[in-house]
């Protein structure tokens, strides 16, 4: 990555060095200017010569400065963007399990805050190191050229600037960390309080909560004040060191001027160089501190890159057969667990769904229904030799081919904050307008979309239109339909709709479903009762299988569930006594 922009960096560094050299020329010219006035006596052409040279040097310096700023800071910004893109691309290929145990906030902070620390180290760090090297050697040699003894005395105090920046900088960093920690404590307190506000109000504990908050806030105030104290010592302290040096120069230099061992111009130039030294000395102390932070940030970024990608993304060149997938699904004695130490999520599952058939899976939450289809999609990696599509082990089907073949509507609908069009076409970008509208029609979302002023260009999400739960599910359904996949999986997709609406959607879908393999997952009997085969799952196992009537006649778990659901429905359908007033 650095190699990509090495020309930028090299040009920037060269410009920076030239800028610094030009900057050092200016005090020298001032010296010439002053001496020209004092020394000569009488109007001389040099009176205008030096001012003009100063302005010329400054113009050249400005040009160079523009150049290095664009190059060096541009370099670090470009690196930041590329690295962030690379990390994001890597995230996209990580196994889903990774996201279950990583906090979103943590990942986001690594891709933003840590990136920023790293970039600052690159931009500011390289600037400071070069600046320091050039200015210190340059200024020092010029100062020595003016007067070596004075240089020695004036430098006595200056290293303390670096030391104090280093010393205080470290403490300031620790204190800032402390303050940050306390701030998150304060945030947590507020978050807890608001989440538990019912309890707080129910027990009339508002006053105590306020007192608790006040205590924490006061502690935060104290910690901040400590930090502020460190800051308010550091800056004045650096001024003191610089000031002492200036006083030494004034005293010793002034004496030399008196004795005629030094011209007034030299004296002014010397002061100028001394002032130039201050900034690199501060920067060098700062960079040492920054380095530690930048390195820590970088290691957190690299930590992400070190996580191996999901198996499906690893196999690079699997042969991709040309004939389309028919949609025979077969599972042979599948056992699966989410990892060592986890209880088995699926045990001894075997089933066969011929192409075009519909299979209903029913069972309580946590019975393994969703796990089963996740394995089919390779969202989690199934063991080899267990899950087959068209008699091919899914672990040997290239991921793009597999995913193009399956239309999946999951339990928790996720729509992007983008237009409805983009959301539906998410599944199949090449679809034409006709296909887009057809899929919306089948999913019965078309009338709703027609109702929006911007139709398919309506933006969804926080800053756009908020869809109802049912509309979201239909949009997600359209997203799966537009792919025209040979296999359709509806994973409890209509749980937030009432039974009538669900029946209605399923009826509409019937024609679409008849031409492809469909897996219907639900906890409602009404969803699956028309399926060609129904599986009842409990605790990772299939406990009953058959078609609706067979299962009812068996008078087992399926039958009992059916009875309960009937009863619930009856209760729900009981009308109110009185109409709305």
């Amino acid at each position, binding site marked *: 990555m650095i190699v990509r922009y090495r020309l930028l960096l090299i040009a920037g560094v060269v410009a920076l060095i030239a800028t610094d050299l030009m900057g050092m020329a200016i005090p020298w010219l001032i010296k010439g200017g002053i001496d020209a006035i004092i020394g000569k006596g009488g109007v001389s052409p040099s009176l205008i010569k030096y001012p003009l040279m100063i302005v010329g040097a400054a113009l050249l310096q400005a040009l160079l400065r523009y150049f290095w700023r664009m190059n060096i800071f541009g370099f670090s910004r470009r690196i930041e963007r590329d690295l962030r893109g690379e990390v994001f691309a890597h995230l*996209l290929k990580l196994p889903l399990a990774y996201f279950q145990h990583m906090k979103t906030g943590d990942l986001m902070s690594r891709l933003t805050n840590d990136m920023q620390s790293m970039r600052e180290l690159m931009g500011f760090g390289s600037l400071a190191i070069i600046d320091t090297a050039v200015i210190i050697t340059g200024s020092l040699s010029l100062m020595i050229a003016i007067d070596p003894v004075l240089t020695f005395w004036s430098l006595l105090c200056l290293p303390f600037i670096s030391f104090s920046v280093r010393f205080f900088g470290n403490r300031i960093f620790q204190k800032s960390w402390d303050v940050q920690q306390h701030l998150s404590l304060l945030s947590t307190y507020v978050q807890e309080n608001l989440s538990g506000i019912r309890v707080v*109000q129910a027990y009339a504990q508002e006053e105590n909560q306020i007192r608790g908050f006040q205590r924490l806030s006061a502690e935060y105030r104290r910690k901040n004040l400590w930090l502020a104290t460190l800051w308010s010592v550091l800056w004045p302290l650096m001024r003191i060191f610089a000031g002492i040096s200036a006083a030494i120069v004034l005293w010793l230099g002034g004496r030399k001027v008196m004795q005629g061992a030094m011209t007034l111009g030299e004296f002014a130039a010397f002061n100028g160089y001394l002032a130039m030294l201050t900034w690199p000395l501060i920067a060098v102390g700062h960079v040492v501190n920054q380095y530690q932070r930048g390195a820590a940030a970088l290691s957190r970024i690299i930590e992400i890159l070190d996580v191996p990608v999901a198996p499906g993304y690893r196999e690079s060149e699997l042969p991709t057969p040309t004939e389309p997938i028919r949609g025979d699904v077969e599972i042979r004695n599948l056992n699966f667990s989410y990892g060592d130490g986890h209880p088995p999520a699926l045990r001894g599952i075997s089933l066969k769904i011929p192409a075009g058939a519909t299979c209903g899976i029913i069972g309580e939450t946590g019975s393994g229904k969703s796990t089963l289809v996740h394995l089919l999609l390779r969202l989690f990696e199934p063991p080899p030799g267990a899950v087959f599509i068209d008699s091919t082990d899914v672990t040997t089907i290239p991921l793009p081919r597999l995913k193009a073949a399956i239309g999946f509507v*999951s339990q928790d609908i996720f729509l992007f904050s983008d237009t409805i069009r983009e959301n539906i076409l998410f599944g199949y970008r090449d679809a034409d307008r006709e296909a887009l509208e057809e899929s919306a029609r089948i999913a019965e979302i078309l009338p709703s979309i027609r109702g929006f002023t911007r139709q398919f260009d309506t933006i969804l999400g926080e800053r756009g239109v908020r869809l109802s739960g049912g509309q979201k599910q239909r949009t997600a359904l359209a997203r799966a339909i537009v792919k025209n996949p040979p296999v359709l999986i509806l994973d409890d997709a209509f749980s937030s709709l009432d039974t009538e609406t669900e029946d209605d959607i399923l009826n509409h879908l019937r024609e679409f479903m008849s031409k492809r393999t469909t897996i219907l997952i639900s906890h409602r009997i009404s969803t699956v009762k028309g399926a060609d085969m129904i599986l009842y799952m409990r605790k990772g196992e299939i406990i009953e299988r058959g078609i609706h009537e067979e299962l009812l006649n068996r008078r087992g778990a399926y039958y009992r569930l059916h009875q309960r659901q009937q009863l619930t429905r009856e209760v729900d359908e009981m009308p109110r006594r009185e109409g709305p007033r």
Partner: protein
Amino acid sequence: MSETMHPEDEIFGKFYDARLMGRILRYLKPYWKLLVLSLLFLVLYTGTLLLGPYLTKIAIDQYISAGNLDGLKLVVMAYLGTVFLGFFFLFGETYITEYTGQRAMHDLRTQIFAHLQKQDMAYLDRNPVGRLMTRTINDVETLNELFSTGVVGLLGDAFTVFGIAGAMLLLDWKLALVTLAGFPLIIYLSRFYRRRARDVYRESRLVLGRLNANLQESIAGMGTIQSFGQEEKAYERFQGINTDYRDVLLRGIRYNALFFPVIEVFSALTIGLTLWFGGRLILGHALLPGVIVAFIQYIQRMYTPIRDIAEKYNIMQAAMASSERIFALLDTEEKIRNPLVPKVPRQFQGAVEFKDVWLSYNPGEPVLRGITFRVEAGEKIALVGATGGGKTSIIAALCRFYEIERGSILVDGVDIREWNKQDLRRRLGLVLQDVFLFSGDIAGNITLGDPRISEEQIHAASRRAHIASYIEQLPAGYREEVQERGVTLSQGQRQLLSFARALAFDPRILILDEATSSVDTRTETLIQEALKELLKDRTALIIAHRLSTIKNVNRILVIHKGELWEEGSHQELLARQGLYSRLYELQYQAQEHGGNGAHSPVG
């Protein structure tokens, strides 16, 4: 950082808004003496800054040129003096400013927090926790920057610029006028730059917001992305914003890279001008050379404040936007207020009466429709019904979490709107289904931080709730931390702990929403025992999920679609063969055969 952006977070304030500033300053009023002191220090510090070059001039013109070593010594001492005084003044100014700022922010933060405590549930339902947290914490932080860098920094910069101009005019007004001739142009240029820098700042904030939103969405929607095989597209989408972000910032770099050198050129131009014009004056014996040296030093100090102006401008702006949001929050009125003169019933008995109570969360969608019932003091009532029927709303209305629309609720004969809210709630012990634990130790979770509950009362309550023996065998006993850092309590233990909480507060009326989660048989027995203790000598309203509970209460109210459907004892209602008998079959019958402790209705 895990925040989605709310539209209102994107407001960018004006640079200065007198109305807002006036309100902000009110928080500083208690500390005005300190502020005056810090302002004084600021002026004095600027003074020491101005003295440096002036002393150099004295040294050159009066002593060095005259060869007066003692005089030079004096000037050097004076110079050192200004350096040390400067240290003292700068320290004093920074510290006092920070101190008052922190104090004022502490006051403001506490006020916001206290304000939130008084809001009713409808308000808290409407405003996501994350947004309110941002107001209480982050917006106050932004405002704090206004104090520590913004206002004071701007004042200090103004002092410096005007001070230097003044000092130069005093030293030699002719030379000063020539030197300062370019200054209006610089001011003009810096305004131009400031506007650009502000635009870049705004845009970069917006793009960063988009970047964060996309990042959050992509991580949250990773399952969808991967199941549709849309990694490429997600990457393109992200990289598009990522590139936009880079480009906005590169534009910012360009403005800086243009403006900073221009400032330097101006500084050099001014120095050149000083040398040329000053040189002519010196040659004409109208000026002493020290003045030129001093001028050059002044010029170098004058341009730093101008360079930093954009940064301070942004701070001011962000602070104005934050304060606007904070004040908007503080201006929301408390919806459920205490009456001016609360009524107190003659005796606390614990009788509850609902008279034709209507309640809606959304206008036009009543969740309670004319509920009427009466609970005598000491009576135990179970509320039964399908999910969403209105049981929880009855409880919420009784606790006055929401204001009812019509009808009235009486506790001991006094309308709850005439009670003092806190007094009322102290008589009502609410035990919720999902027990909310605060971080802190076990004792703190029983008392909720109420200092009036003694150590003995905590122990007694825990014993009666049958959780004492468990707590006492923990390494730190009642001081054991719960939540993240400490023990993880099981569902059953959490319930017992919430019973202990209610017992410690000893309310006249107990309101219990029984947990539906199943627990093991041993814990179930403990809960049954503890429940008996809890119900003793109290009025009780219970959203019942346990068979044993509905069998033991005096009366059962069946709530259906916001109405009171039927009421009576378990046997009476079963005999009626109505809604209750079906609900019983659905929710409780399985427990007859020793099934799980409790059952959730299957929807």
